[in-house]
């Protein structure tokens, strides 16, 4: 191994011993040892030392005052009072004064202690010997012998039946712990494949909570919708909106490049899932001139005029489109659930 190849004299600890060919002049690079201690001003001038003492005491007193200030601020400032502090802005008076006073109170204790250590405590450098971490051979021999004796006395090696059944028992017992985790949640089933959309559900405008009519939606506008019957008060609202959120835009039919997209639209109104197919951020940075929609989380970009195709970024498949029509009463409604699972892809998606 190369450790043997390294010239011994390069090891600092050996340099003192090395008295070879250049011994006459001495090794110019030899370790001269710890330099002699040089006194600080405080070590020789009592007045300087007294000055340091006063500085340390001043810092400690400052800390006391800051703590008093902290308590005073806590008691006197209302929790909702905002003040203007240049250049920070309109900030909470309480947070600002508590932070500063606590900061000063703590910092001054530290600064005092460190100044004390730096100027008044001894700064003589001392060397302490190191000892090898590895045990001496005789220690190791003793440990090995003890271990062999213990192993022998237990009969662990001889009584194989005991050993094997014990391993078996130990291997099985953690299974109870694993089994206990089963009720953390339900099995996936088809949960990720279904949303709250179904045939005949009207598209409810999220802003006004009213059903949408085709004439409400202009070319270049952006509207978000949720299925009829879903209410913010519902217990599973978050779960449902996480899959059902819908983004609606209107394109001129001649601008729609994808035939299926056109078939699934109503008068050029297309409804796409708002949930990114990458990892599920609500995508909706719609550029109305390019018809591109960008995800703010990881910048997957989809073309809403071309079947929601991915044109940039880490998403792996197109945005699902919801098939819609205008019903007899003149409102937009879904013609069924999404044809494919919305949101991020998963193993069983296929």
């Amino acid at each position, binding site marked *: 191994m190369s450790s043997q190849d390294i010239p011994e004299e390069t090891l600092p600890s050996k340099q003192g011993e090395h008295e070879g060919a250049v011994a006459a002049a001495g090794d110019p690079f030899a370790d001269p040892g710890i330099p002699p201690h*040089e006194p600080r001003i405080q070590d020789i001038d009592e007045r300087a030392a007294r000055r340091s003492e006063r500085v340390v005491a001043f810092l400690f007193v400052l800390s006391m005052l800051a703590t008093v200030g902290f308590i005073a601020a806590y008691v006197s400032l209302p929790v909702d009072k*905002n003040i203007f502090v240049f250049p*920070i802005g309109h900030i*909470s008076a309480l*947070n600002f004064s508590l932070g500063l006073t606590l900061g000063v109170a703590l910092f001054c204790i530290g600064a005092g202690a460190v100044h004390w250590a730096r100027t008044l405590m001894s700064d003589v450098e001392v060397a302490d010997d190191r000892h090898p971490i590895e045990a001496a051979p005789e220690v190791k021999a003793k440990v090995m012998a003890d271990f062999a004796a213990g192993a022998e006395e237990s009969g662990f090696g001889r009584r194989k039946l005991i050993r094997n059944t014990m391993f078996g028992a130990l291997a099985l017992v953690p299974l109870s712990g694993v089994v206990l985790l089963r009720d953390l949640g339900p099995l996936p089933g088809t949960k990720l494949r279904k949303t709250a959309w179904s045939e005949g559900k009207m598209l409810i405008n999220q802003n006004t909570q009213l059903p949408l009519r085709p004439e409400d939606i202009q070319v270049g*506008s952006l509207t978000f919708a949720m299925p009829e019957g879903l209410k913010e008060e519902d217990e599973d609202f978050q779960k449902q909106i996480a899959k059902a959120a819908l983004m609606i835009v209107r394109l001129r039919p001649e601008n729609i490049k994808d035939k299926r997209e056109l078939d699934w639209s109503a008068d050029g109104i297309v409804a796409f899932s708002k949930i990114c197919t990458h990892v599920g951020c609500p995508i909706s*940075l719609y550029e109305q001139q390019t018809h591109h929609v960008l995800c*703010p989380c990881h910048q997957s970009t989809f073309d809403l005029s071309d079947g929601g195709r991915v044109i*940039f970024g880490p998403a792996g498949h197109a945005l699902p489109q919801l098939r819609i029509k205008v019903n007899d009463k003149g409102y937009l409604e879904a013609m069924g659930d999404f044809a494919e699972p919305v949101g991020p892809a998963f193993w069983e998606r296929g």
Partner: protein
Amino acid sequence: MKKLSARRRHPLAAVVVLLFALAVTGGLYAAFAPADTAKADDTAQSLAIEEGKKLYSVGCASCHGTGGQGTSDGPSLVGVGSAAVDFQVATGRMPLQQQGAQAPRKKAIYSQAEIDQLAAYIASLGAGPSVPEKSQYSPDGADIAKGGELFRTNCAQCHNFTGKGGALSNGKYAPSLEDVNPKHIYEAMQTGPQNMPSFPDTTMSQKNKKDIIAYLDTVNSSKSESPGGLELGGLGPVSEGLFAWIFGLGALIAVAIWVAAHTAKAKKS
């Protein structure tokens, strides 16, 4: 010019001049008279359109076409409405200095009176959203919390939680909304300037818009409160991380250097 000098001799020239003088007088009267009869309004309107057309042909026609029909350099302005003109010109986005990813906000080069004339002219080309009334965009009496929820649903994806702006694809961006005139915010929602989608009254009611404006007025103006202290741009964890490294860890390392440094020796001082 030649044509004009030739027509000066036309028998009807005197009549035209007379009519023009009357129109100007009428316009001035309409501008200064407290009474706003429909008749005077109409006259003022047509005068404004006339003035607007002049301004248009000098400043806008090269890109948008002589009749606002649009060219390869600029979209058609037929039917965009006066709100779009007021937004684009009053925020300095138009006239464009150079073609780019998108028109940046600049200092407006037209006065509000000129902008109104331009807007009147464009509005006359085809019906479109008109400049909102103060009562429509004033944040007074609006529901700030509802505005916040609407903002997070409709706007935050591009403009950030509190309207600090954000990136779009290929160099485009959603601008910061800090201290933007409420009127312009209203107009932007109504008309969808450039790549921004529009949020017409049919899908986002006037009340909704007012709520959003009130929310922005609370969280993103020069008098907005940031109780925790320095806002760090309101950009979230990236600026916080940078601040923690530079001012947090940086200050701690500076202190560590002081703690570990050798105290000055008497000999050297």
